Structure formats: structure tokens, C-alpha cells
């Protein structure tokens, strides 16, 4: 019970530290994750609180951080129910970004809203499992997009971003894709079909 599982995530690229930490905390009461960059530090800390853990960080002299995750008694079930996989029985939480605007009517306003929306999605404890981008929505995923940082952050936290290939092709921006993976109508329909919850802002 009191044994501490050590996860050495030094030098690993972005999703890896979180993935390893997540696997470890799911099967251990106490996990010590060692990382050497701040993005990983923040992501693992966020994972810890998302999983209902007590999170303690120690900065070491060699520039690494030791993040101690301890499961809080009694919060386990509740917190697990918050995250995506636990509700997998009813299917993934899917967010559909069907345009580079939010709502219909005024595009200038819609573009303000979609940026505010994605910023706020990043701050939510419960993140979508999958985000699907199509039509002008794909423009948000390419170089120069003003929401790229938000999308990359979501991706680093394990959110899968599916970007419609036909759409990238139509706008001739396939070579500029900077977040997510090129997807197709089969994956998009299949993901929508098995969604437990599907939100289109």
C-alpha cells in the first residue's frame, strides 16, 4: 500500500510523461514522477488533481522536478468517474468544431467566441476525449492559428484531435497542419456514432 511507484519521465516528449503517470496512478496509491521540463510538470500536476490526488512538487538542484501524487482516500471513485475512460461504457465525450466561428450570424463575433470557447475548454477539469474539426474549423489547427497553443495543450493532455483531410485539402492547407492528425469521414462518423456525449458549439 505505502510503496511509492517511481516514474522516470526525464527527457520524454510531451504526452509521454502524462501517459506514464496516468498508468502508474491507476494502479498505485503513491507515485513519484520525475520530469525535467515545465510543460511536463504542469501537465502531470493537472493530471494529478484531475485524478483526485494530493500533488506535491519538489524542485531539485539538477533542474528536475519530483511530483508526488498521492491518492486521496474516498475521492478515488468520484474522480475516476470524472475522466473520459471511466465513462467509456457510454462512449467518448466528443467536441465537434464545425467552423472557425461559434454560432451563426456574425463571423467577426463568431471568431471571438470560438477563441474564448477553446480557451475555456482548456481550463475545464473534464476535457473531451476527441475533438473533430471540419469545414472552416480545420483552419484553427494549422500554422498561424491563434488557438494553436490551446489545441496543443489539449493534445498534450491526451485529447485526440481529428482533422478532416478533405477540408484541409479544399483550403489547400494540408501541409500547414500543426495540431492533431489528418482524419477522414469514416473515422469522423464512427467517432460520432459511438460518442457518449457530443457537443457542437
Amino acid at each position, binding site marked *: 500500500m505505502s510503496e511509492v511507484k517511481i516514474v522516470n519521465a526525464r527527457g520524454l516528449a510531451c504526452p509521454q510523461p502524462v501517459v506514464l503517470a496516468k498508468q502508474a496512478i491507476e494502479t498505485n496509491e503513491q507515485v513519484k514522477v520525475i520530469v525535467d521540463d*515545465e510543460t511536463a*510538470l*504542469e501537465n502531470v500536476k493537472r493530471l494529478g488533481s484531475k485524478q483526485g490526488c494530493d500533488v506535491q*512538487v519538489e524542485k531539485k538542484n539538477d533542474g528536475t522536478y519530483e511530483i508526488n501524487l498521492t491518492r486521496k482516500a474516498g475521492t478515488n471513485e468520484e474522480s475516476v468517474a470524472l475522466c473520459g475512460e471511466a465513462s467509456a461504457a457510454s462512449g467518448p465525450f466528443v467536441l465537434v468544431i464545425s467552423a472557425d466561428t461559434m454560432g451563426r450570424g456574425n463571423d*467577426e*463575433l463568431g471568431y*471571438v467566441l470560438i*477563441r*474564448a470557447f477553446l*480557451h*475555456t475548454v482548456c*481550463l475545464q477539469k473534464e476535457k473531451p476525449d476527441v475533438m473533430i474539426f471540419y469545414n472552416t474549423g480545420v483552419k484553427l489547427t494549422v500554422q498561424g492559428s*491563434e488557438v494553436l497553443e490551446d489545441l496543443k495543450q489539449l493534445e498534450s493532455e491526451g485529447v485526440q484531435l481529428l482533422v478532416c483531410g478533405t477540408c484541409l485539402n479544399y483550403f489547400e492547407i494540408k501541409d500547414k497542419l500543426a495540431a492533431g492528425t489528418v482524419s477522414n469521414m469514416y473515422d469522423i462518423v464512427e467517432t460520432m456514432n459511438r460518442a457518449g456525449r457530443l457537443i457542437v458549439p
Partner: protein
Amino acid sequence: MNEKPQYSVMLFKAVSYVLKAEKILKKEGLPHKLIPVPKHISSDCGICLRFEPAMQNKIEAALLNKVEIEDIRALKDQA
């Protein structure tokens, strides 16, 4: 925790002011991010500009006499 950049937000009277300010800041290459007004400041569905405090003087100078700024507030944590 300490490593996280602390941000400030700039509030405006109306969305149109935010858009005008954003255009100017983009043109001047001054880093900023358009975000919803944090809940602890106002529960209206407002929009504001977030920036790093080190940039405040430059941003204010760029907007001087062009866009009226309503308020500048420090952001605690997150957002």
C-alpha cells in the same frame, strides 16, 4: 507553481473596443490573448485581453488615444 507566468487582463467597455485593441496589438506585434473575462471579475459574458505584465507599458502606449481601457487587473492563477 511559481514558474507559471502570471498574467494581467485588460478590460474594455464593449466587445468592439476589444476587437479594435486586438487589431492594434496584432499590428504592433505585442503578444496577448483574447479570453473570456474571468468569472471572479465579472459574470457577464465578456471578452478581455490577457497579457504578461512586462508588456503592460508597451500595450498601454500602443492603445493610448486609440482605445479606451476600462480597467487592468492581475489574474490569479489559471486563466
